């Protein structure tokens, strides 16, 4: 198997089939001091700084998928390698869902979504994977297995390592299993389409579960019981409305952002929501999540990035370069981490003392 990361080819590619094999591989990583990256299904392999040095890739996406659903508790456990679609189908079979709608979901593994903490517009109500994570099993360099969290809704015993692991891009260890909060399938789902964008306050008053703006149009998702959804749609006035399966398909297509991520450069702008409308976004395809203060922009180059970052910094936000050619990323921190990098590096060191995971791609 040959996989290059930003043009850098690893010497070794490990494809463990079981957790036991993964632990053996991690023992080898430590023994031989291999600078290693973790890959799930590879849907986000373009994300990150150009690797400083890359000896090995561990591809965990081929491990056996497994999902266990507990309808009484409204939770599910999933192996990291389970695909988002496999999980969705299994949860739907039990009348449940994982209430997340992150970019590239249809191409992602559960572990990849948690490791990147990528989220979509529904995070306004349901929060991010990091917030929904109840327990995580994390394999460390050297081959130790650790478990963080009791797996119940409320658990404050010890440090909240779960929150560190979610969004850590595989630099602390390898996620092998997660236990997450689920939600029941709502009685009704509707997506309303307006041919204009709305003022933020006006949008919030409509109380959608999530809202996006694409090409000058607003898409708002409503869900709940029928009376609730009809009431919200009634407050909105004019507009096209899709219900049920049609609504879910439209929402899934929109929020997956496959078209946007096929462009050579993708920026993610995060700002306090009231400031986002003033962002000096470059020309290109945009996907705004106004209630969260997040915008994705697909452009041809990173020209103007410094000005955009200066603006974001001035309002307390940041601009991550999610995708760009390696030569464009070579001399920047794509994540735009400004403060507390020293603390993050030392926290990483607590998990990975020799700094073997991540190869400079994240922290």
């Amino acid at each position: 198997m040959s996989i290059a990361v930003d043009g850098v080819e690893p010497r070794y590619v490990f494809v463990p089939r079981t957790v036991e094999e993964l632990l053996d591989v991690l023992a080898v990583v430590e023994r031989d001091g291999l600078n290693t990256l973790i890959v799930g299904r590879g849907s986000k392999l373009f994300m990150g700084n150009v690797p400083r040095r890359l000896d090995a890739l561990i591809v965990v996406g081929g491990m056996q998928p497994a999902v266990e659903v507990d309808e009484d508790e409204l939770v599910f456990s999933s192996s990291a390698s389970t695909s988002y679609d496999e999980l969705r189908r299994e949860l739907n079979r039990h009348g449940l869902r994982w209430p997340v709608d992150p970019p590239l979901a249809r191409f992602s593994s559960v572990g990849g979504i948690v490791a990147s903490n990528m989220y979509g517009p529904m995070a306004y109500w349901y929060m991010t994977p990091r917030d929904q994570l109840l327990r995580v099993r994390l394999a460390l360099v050297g081959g130790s297995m650790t478990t963080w969290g009791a797996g119940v809704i409320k658990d404050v015993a010890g440090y909240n390592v779960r929150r560190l692991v979610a969004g850590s891009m595989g630099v602390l260890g390898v996620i092998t299993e997660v236990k997450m909060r689920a939600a029941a399938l709502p009685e009704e789902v509707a997506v309303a389409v307006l041919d204009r964008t709305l003022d933020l306050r006006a949008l919030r008053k409509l109380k959608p579960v999530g809202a996006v703006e694409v090409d000058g149009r607003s898409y708002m998702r409503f869900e709940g019981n029928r009376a609730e959804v009809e009431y919200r749609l009634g407050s909105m006035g004019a507009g096209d409305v899709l219900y049920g399966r049609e609504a879910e398909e439209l929402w899934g297509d929109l929020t997956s952002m496959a078209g946007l991520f096929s462009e050579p450069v993708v920026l993610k702008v995060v700002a306090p929501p009231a400031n986002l409308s003033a962002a000096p976004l470059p020309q290109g395809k945009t996907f705004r999540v106004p209630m969260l203060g997040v915008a994705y922009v697909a452009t041809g180059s990173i020209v103007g990035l410094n000005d955009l970052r200066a603006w974001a910094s001035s309002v307390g936000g940041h601009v991550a370069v999610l995708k760009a050619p390696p030569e464009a990323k070579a001399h920047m921190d794509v994540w735009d981490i400004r403060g507390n990098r020293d603390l993050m590096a030392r926290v990483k060191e607590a998990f990975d003392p020799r700094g073997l995971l991540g190869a400079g791609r994240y922290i």
Partner: protein
Amino acid sequence: MDRRLARALASIVGEENVLVDPAELLVYEADGSLVTATRPDVVVFPGTAEEVAGVMRLAREFGVPIVPRGSGTSLSGGAQPVRGGIVLSLARMNRILEVDLDNEVVVVEPAVINAWVNEAVQRAGYAIAIDPGYQYAPDPGSQRVSTVGGNVGHNSGGIKCFKYGVTVNHVRGLEVVLPNGEVRRLGGKAFEAPGLDLTGLFVGSEGTLGVVTKVTIRVVPLFEAVKTILATFDSADAAGSAVSALVRSGVRPLAVELMDKEAVEAVESGPYAAGLPRDAEALLLIDVEGSEPGASQDAEKVASILRAHGANMVRLASDGDEAQKWWAARKQAFGAMGFVGPNYVVEDGTVPRKALPLALNRIREIVAAHGLRVANVFHAGDGNLHPLILYDERDPAQRDAALRAGEEVLRMCVELGGTITGEHGVGWHKRRLLPLMYSEVELDLMRRIKAVFDPDNVVNPGKVLP
């Protein structure tokens, strides 16, 4: 105590903000659990982050422990100065700095009382005509006295957390002072900060990594209508089963609380009596919210599910006043225990929701085996148990028995797949039990995380980690 330390502290915060008189120190010997007490050498009241930083540097220089304290309502000995040293009271840092509803956040100093946030948000909300406004959702039972900083330290939960999550899900940013005196800003008003989630790590770290001096919290929009449903059952088992059915149904209740007969008896014997039925073995109190028609439909569905699962009485609150009365009774349950027993130990384990009936039975057996009585008030939606084990402190053997029973209850929670603490924290009292949940490899990793921030083990030593 080293008099040089007191003089140096006074030079930072002013003489009037330093306590050394043993009589005055008495107040700071214990936290809200009142089970154990240890005296600090000195109490200081800094007024700014810079003063906190100065005190931190001094503690490090003198090699004395420093214990941050809000209102002291913690229930696990977290605010107790178990090794003496400096109690750093944040009481003077109690200003609401900004209500920014455009960005749906509020910025506060750490000693702002939880309930003040909602009062401030409601005042600001009047400026937005016809809008239902906003709320700060985390609402621990202590919300009228506990501080936001203390809630951050313990990652406090509360009644509405079933729907909205706990404190960590509402903290966007922190200003913290590290033990070396550095002031750091983590996160901010934006929905997400890049890099590892240090904000999330600090929340729930029980003051062992540093001192929080500013908190940016998100507020969530209120709905037009809230419906409150009261239901009674012949057994706590039946009530627990009804909760599982309710949660599976697709309704997202705002709150699901359970009180057993003993707890209702205590509440109804006191000033917050709300006419709750004393003859029921268990009582559920449930809120749903939404638009008027949406909330009404949910309330009907909830009532129908409860009836189908053994409720012998289901009532919808006739108006907001009645609902408020019922909730006030629930929230005063801890305080009302004085009417049925002179003292109590409150535990805080969580079990999987479906294990609630079994856990309740086991709790009764455990406590009875120690010759004591127990009342139960808990967050049924999330399986967070709060058994109140009643004892009389005039009999030291009873106190010890209550503590032993409490520990057995927590061990049972872990056996059933739960945790030793759902929202009160590990603190001092439960640190010995943490190995029930974490291996030595995991505990060692937590120790290394602590050392990243506090290599000299100056801040709140002896807490959380065994």
